């Protein structure tokens, strides 16, 4: 069953990209809130804080994963002969690509904003 779901031609991947995006989004917002509540960095540190670095790395990793999934979905769409599977894989590729771009776009502020002010 799980093997079946992991195939990129399965329609579950229609929501895979945005689900990963959602988990990442909750993780960075929740993580930021908890980190600022428990161990806020000094204001003088500006953006050079562990919180910014961790969020930045997480953002790059998740965006990379999503980009790879988008690329792999296109490959899966080209390989299959079933029209239905081709449709699902191409549509999933679009959603993965959007999610990757969305992750990078939403993550950009860690470069120029301090975390807890």
């Amino acid at each position, binding site marked *: 069953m799980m093997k079946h779901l992991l195939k990129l031609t399965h329609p579950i991947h229609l929501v895979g990209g*945005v689900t990963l*995006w959602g988990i990442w989004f909750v993780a960075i917002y929740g993580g930021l809130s908890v980190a600022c509540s*428990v161990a806020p960095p000094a204001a003088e540190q500006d953006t050079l804080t562990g919180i910014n670095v961790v969020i930045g790395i997480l953002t790059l990793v998740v965006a990379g994963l999503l980009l790879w999934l988008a690329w792999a979905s296109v490959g899966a769409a080209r390989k299959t002969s079933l029209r239905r599977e081709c449709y*699902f894989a191409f549509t999933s590729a679009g959603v993965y690509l959007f999610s990757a771009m*969305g992750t990078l*776009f939403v993550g950009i*502020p*860690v470069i120029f904003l*301090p975390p807890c*002010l």
Partner: protein
Amino acid sequence: MSDTENASLSPEARELHDGLDRVWGNPRGLRALTVVNHTTVGLRFIITGAVFFLIGGLLAMLIRTQLAFPDQEFMSHETYNQVFTMHGTVMMFLFAIPILEGLAIYMIPKMIGARDLVCPRLTAFGYWCYLFGGIILTSSLLLEMAPASGWFMYTPLSSGEYSPGRGSDFWLLGITFVEISALSAGVELVVSILRTRTQGMALHKMPLFAWYILAMALMIVVGFPPLILGSILLELERATGMPFFDVSGGGDPVLWAHLFWLFGHPEVYIIFLPGAGIVSTLIPVFAGRPIVGYGWVVAAVIIMGFVSFGLWVHHMFTLGIPQLALAFFSAASMLVAIPTAIQIFVWLSTLWLGRPVMKLPMLWIVGFLVIFVLGGLTGVMLALVPFNWQVHDTHFVVAHMHYVLVGGMLFPLMAALYYWLPQVSGRMPSERLGRWSFWLIFLGFNTTFLVMHWTGLLGMRRRVFTYDADMGWGLYNLISSVGGFMMAAGIALLLLDIALHFRFGKKASQNPWNADGLEWAMPKPPTAYNFVSLPAIETRHPLWEDPELPRTIEEGRHGLANIDHGRRETWGTDPLTGKLRETIHLSGNSWLPLLAALALAVVCISLLVRIYPLAAVATVVSIVILLHWSWVNGAHPKMAPDATVAPGEPPLHSRTMNGPGVWTMSVSHLANGSLFLSLLFGWFYLWTVAPEWQMPATSPLSMPMLVAAGGALTLGTLWLVKLVRRLRQHDDTGLSGGLYFAAALGALQSVLLGVVIWQADLAPTETAHDATLLVALLYVLIHALLGGLLCLLQGLRVGYGYVSAEVPYEPVVVLRLWNYNVVVYWILFVAIWGIPTLLGGG
């Protein structure tokens, strides 16, 4: 008169029609209250929604009258507070969502080739909850004790200290009651779309409208529970003093804002998506060509459905949240413009490449495009934090919101009204009256709200009941008021048009707009069973590819063209491929939905007037009715005691292991899980953010008792897994004994949890910590009781022969509940005992 009565049918086909009429027909007189059919209930939703729209519109006119001139004394500020609060509440909760749900309830089975929704009694129950909840809420206006804290009821303004009357209680209890309706419709629309499409209609071939409604329904299922939880907590605070939102007791009013907007922002998209679905359905019809980029639209709908849950904090930009967090939400808010733009370009491309015909429905679609794009642009402006700070809580926001909601929902709804009116009445709408009404509403709307942007930029705050003449807002407010009354005149003309339509409208042909959708293959007005026979559909445009479909359906040449068994049936198909899996037998007309909703209305009213013993009795009565409802199912004599199906047809769903009930239970747990996660969010939020939160040094909860209760639950679940596994192998030996054993374990878990609560000696009215613990423990206790009770009933049903190796369906459904319970219980154990014990107090 139905089309079918004019058709020249063979005697066999006529007999089939008559038989279907006997089984599916709606009773008249008092028994009309028992009707569960989706067509009738959908229409009831729509008509009731329209009545609430008129009430909300009337309140809007009162607001515009009050604001038309400076220093007006048309209303006192107390009355004005009630009027604007009820305007927003009625429009959002009693008009927008229910009427769109009504449209979906009415249209979806017709579009996917089904005879009804998958849980007809649930459809009717949802309607009654909506009606009674709506009446309770609006009665507060007549009693002059309407809520007055704004439609999002921010605490502490809505809390007992600052709103001591019954107004907030009307809102919290009435809205929660209405939300039962939204959730029930959400759950059954999801399952119906996934499991009852006609044979061959694979997921990638279903109508775009069904994709939109699927997304909307899932968003309702996930998005409404945070508000339900918030409402329960606030009502508990108001009624008993549990300080969830009171800083001095360890609570935090910002928690309410989070819970409200976790629901409130997705709600905007819950309202917009069906509107966009209407647009995606109508544009190809009037452009005379298939939509450009079906896949792009599906991707955009999915993206919108998810991203819209990541925007809620953009309603809270001025609450003091760190700038980096604001930037995340600002960026996410801009991100949602991409799927919106994809759809707009798809619509424009379809019009560009087709040959558009400017019929009346199309006029409303053009109006939608103009207004919604303008609303979307101001939305991107508001997503920018510095600009948002400047115009926060001004009339600019009010104007933006109306551009998005009226443009995104009301205009497509009007297009849908005129487009599908011939389907309901068998008559064509009047182009002349319709155009007059369109232009009055379009011009009136823009006169009201375009100017309102300027009023807001000049600094006029929303919700002020009057203003000084020196502020210089007088002229703009007067223009807005004139526009408002122009719009009201347009609505009045529209009502006149609809009234005349049913008497004087020209007869419609079978497919008057040359549409491609299956709903135009039905008789007009529709019969209660929709289709005499269910066709196999393997194209996105059934009527364009087979114009003879209406005739062959009517002649009974397709599937399920047999009514000798006396059952209400529709196909159950594979969610991906559309291959036939089961014959789903549906319940007939019943008093149970009405009685259950009435009992809940008594609960609601008695909580409102704080007669708690009566509330307790009514709760027990409603539980008994709902359990009786669950009893009349499966192989019960009133449902399907005889499992015989025609040769070549798939088995009845109650004789399988994966029927729609299993899906319904699973989708319900999405809603339940969303409520649970909201509760966990509340627990951790208060713990980390609330300034006066007090975490005791050691947990007041008994760990051995908690583990023992969890052990009983886990053992019961494993026991049920074993029973279901045996049923899959057609072995029902020891089934009833096993179910009774599981019921006993459920009872044991309940008793142990009761002891935990009793031993903990909590002070829920003194600290938010204890109040949250109590609510969490009650949540799992209620689930434990329900799990045990359902197993007990299943054991009894084995004795009656309703559950067996031949009818193995129901234990699978009950197992889903136990699976959910066991996962949730251990997560909660870790959250309320494990982590606090690990981290210690403080």
